[in-house]
């Protein structure tokens, strides 16, 4: 398929979009901000017959609180996330992750649905969504299902999404007053770089000094998909998260991740950096928590 032969159709609403997705016999792919899709089209990797341009579907661009949960439309851009008061106060880790995506232009163009849809093991918003317990609403013309984000990815670029389906809503649990999160990323440079390793943490804090009642830790770019570090998580509740404890938890992270060597970094470097990022993240998180408390 030559680029000049690929059509672009722009459905006017979600129903029309789902109808087009259900058409058989044509090879189509959704096109949102295009920051992954157009790059891959130029590289010759993604050459569908038709792009289904959803960028204009404003009904899928929202951040709202509903029945105690936060709903984020898949066409919400990274810039929308960064600007959202609601997310700043009740999903801080997602805002921090969105700030780390590319630079201004990519944050204005790129969408959260596209970040999930690309299913890169290094996608920056995904670990944040893991620790916020995100559930994806997936729709086709005549079906709707809910998939926890941890069950959505199968491997690099591979998801459980069928050809006639799309993500129509992202539901996260808002943070309570005693919850606090952080996102840490290592890239080749500060702006515009794909993560060599990233980590998202969300902790539920107790009343006593540095007492933690539980939490979630998710790493990116250290396995074929984003992974939860459950061994590290289980250590959070054992004892107050003192600087010594942070040291111990990050040593466990070194063992728990399973990175590979690729063009961006070697496996052993990734392992060291996963451990270091979690160390730094927990350290900063505790400092922040203490400054809130005092």
């Amino acid at each position, binding site marked *: 398929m030559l680029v000049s032969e690929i059509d*672009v159709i722009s459905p006017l609403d979600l129903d029309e979009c789902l109808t087009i997705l259900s058409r058989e016999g044509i090879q189509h792919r959704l096109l949102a901000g*295009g920051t992954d899709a157009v790059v891959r*089209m130029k590289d010759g990797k993604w050459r569908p017959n038709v*792009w289904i*341009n959803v960028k204009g579907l404003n009904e899928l661009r929202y951040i709202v609180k509903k029945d105690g949960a936060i709903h984020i439309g898949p066409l919400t851009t990274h*810039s929308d996330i960064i600007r959202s008061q609601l997310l700043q106060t009740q999903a801080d880790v997602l805002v921090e992750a969105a700030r780390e995506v590319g*630079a*201004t*232009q990519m944050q204005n*163009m790129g969408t959260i649905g596209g970040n999930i849809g690309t299913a890169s093991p290094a996608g920056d918003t995904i670990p944040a969504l893991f620790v916020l317990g995100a559930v994806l609403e997936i729709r086709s013309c005549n079906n709707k299902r809910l998939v926890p984000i941890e069950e959505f990815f199968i491997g690099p670029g591979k998801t459980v999404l069928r050809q006639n389906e799309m993500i129509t809503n992202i539901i996260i649990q808002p943070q309570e007053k005693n919850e606090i999160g952080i996102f840490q990323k290592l890239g080749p440079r500060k702006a515009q770089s794909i993560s060599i390793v990233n980590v998202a943490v969300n902790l539920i804090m107790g009343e006593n000094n540095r007492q933690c009642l539980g939490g979630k830790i998710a790493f990116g770019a250290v396995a074929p998909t984003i992974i939860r570090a459950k061994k590290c998580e289980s250590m959070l509740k054992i004892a107050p998260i003192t600087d010594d404890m942070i040291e111990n938890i990050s040593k466990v992270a070194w063992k728990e991740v399973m990175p590979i060597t690729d063009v961006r970094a070697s496996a052993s470097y990734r392992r060291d950096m996963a451990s270091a990022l979690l160390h730094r993240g927990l350290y900063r998180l505790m400092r922040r928590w203490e400054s809130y408390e005092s």
Partner: protein
Amino acid sequence: MKPIRFTVNGSPREVNCHPSKTLLDVLREDLNLTASKECCGKGECGSCSILVDKEVICSCLVLAGQAEGMDITTCEGVGLTANMDIVQEAFVSEGATQCGYCTPGLIVSSRAFLNSIEHIPSVSEIKTALGGNLCRCTGYAKIIRAVETAAKHQLENKGKLSLR
């Protein structure tokens, strides 16, 4: 080929092209607006930056078929020699350009940034705002100074306006 209608620099335009052509190529080839440049073609360098609905984006990653109805401003729309914007004047007075290839993109990004603030930005704010624009010549110091200067002039102009 498909007809596509949008607004560029305030004027309604219509072009006929294949819908997967990039907006950057449409601007340069079909509309002869050649300030926006192609360098990396993949969103990394910002030399193709334009404003869409007042937000800065990379036109090398937008397809013509997505541009229907868009309100686009290119560097030409920010200002031309006869009616330079304060950002452009500051780039000249600070000597923030050498080969000039990155300059239109930087001017567009700087304009978007200045539209969003009402204070003199810190160096780190400027670096964050312009992180998506690469320059291989200047070493950035003069570019950052130009944005500071433009921000000062912008505030002065606003001050003058409020006195009237």
